[in-house]
């Protein structure tokens, strides 16, 4: 018998909350981005757990697509961050407050 799914869901909830608090507290754009990745992974863990509990491959397919979209998101996001930092080397998340750079 394996671990009950509730424990995986609890762990995912804890990871998601830590990521959310980090996103609210930190001011370094890169670290905020890492916190987003943390929240995405907590959601992935939930998907896989429900996939096992409901005996359905769909949850694992969803995780597969989340991985691909996360890769694309990271590339575009880091491109934006590099573009911002090239103009203003000392910028934090609070300094980027106008749409026109």
């Amino acid at each position: 018998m394996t671990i009950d799914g509730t424990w995986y869901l609890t762990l995912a909830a804890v990871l998601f909350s830590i990521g959310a608090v980090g996103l609210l507290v930190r001011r370094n754009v890169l670290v905020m981005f890492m916190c987003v990745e943390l929240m995405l992974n907590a959601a992935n863990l939930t998907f896989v757990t429900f996939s096992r509990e409901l005996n359905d491959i769909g949850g694992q397919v969803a995780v597969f697509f989340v991985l691909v979209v996360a890769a694309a998101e990271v590339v575009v996001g880091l491109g934006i961050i590099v573009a911002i930092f090239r103009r203003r080397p000392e910028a934090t998340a609070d300094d980027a407050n106008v749409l026109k750079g």
Partner: protein
Amino acid sequence: MGALLATATLPDLATFVVAAVICVTGAFGVVLSRNPVHAALSLVATLFGIAVLFVEENAQFLAAVQVIVYTGAIVVLFLFVIMLLGVDRRERVIADQFHGQHYVAGGLGALILAEVLLLGTGHWSTGARATSGALSRPIPNVDQLGRSIFTTYLLPFEITSALLVVAVIAAVVLARSHETSPLEDTKDKSPGDATAEREEVGSK
């Protein structure tokens, strides 16, 4: 708590506890470390712990992809950008943008945790069974996932490829310098910039 854990065998229990501790420690490391490089390395610990949990839940293909894509590509890309922008800039983690920001953030975090825990442990999942293929058929995990992706989810899969092409083009457009016009841009671009762009697209 004891009743829930009593059904598990000892190896399963040990794997889960160790992986969970690695995950939570890494997550705290991401949020609390001042140096972005340390945050990225803590993120690797968390992602690896989640890969272990995927194996424990019989999702072997996703565990492998998790290690290859996340720790092999995404975190390396993070580290690359940190190095590109300079690592010596440190941030005061305790600097509030407005008065009491940390209390508000902590309160919101507690609220989110309570809500997700309630949803996760309240047994509110519908219990609808196997609409896209049962997991318990006696074929390997990779076979099953492949069949599902190339039959039921074929259209989303094709759209994903278009998304990746768009992301690659966007990365190239965003990473080039905007100070010069496109014509001069090709002429007097410094070799460092060109390498950076190639790296960025390559590690994708």
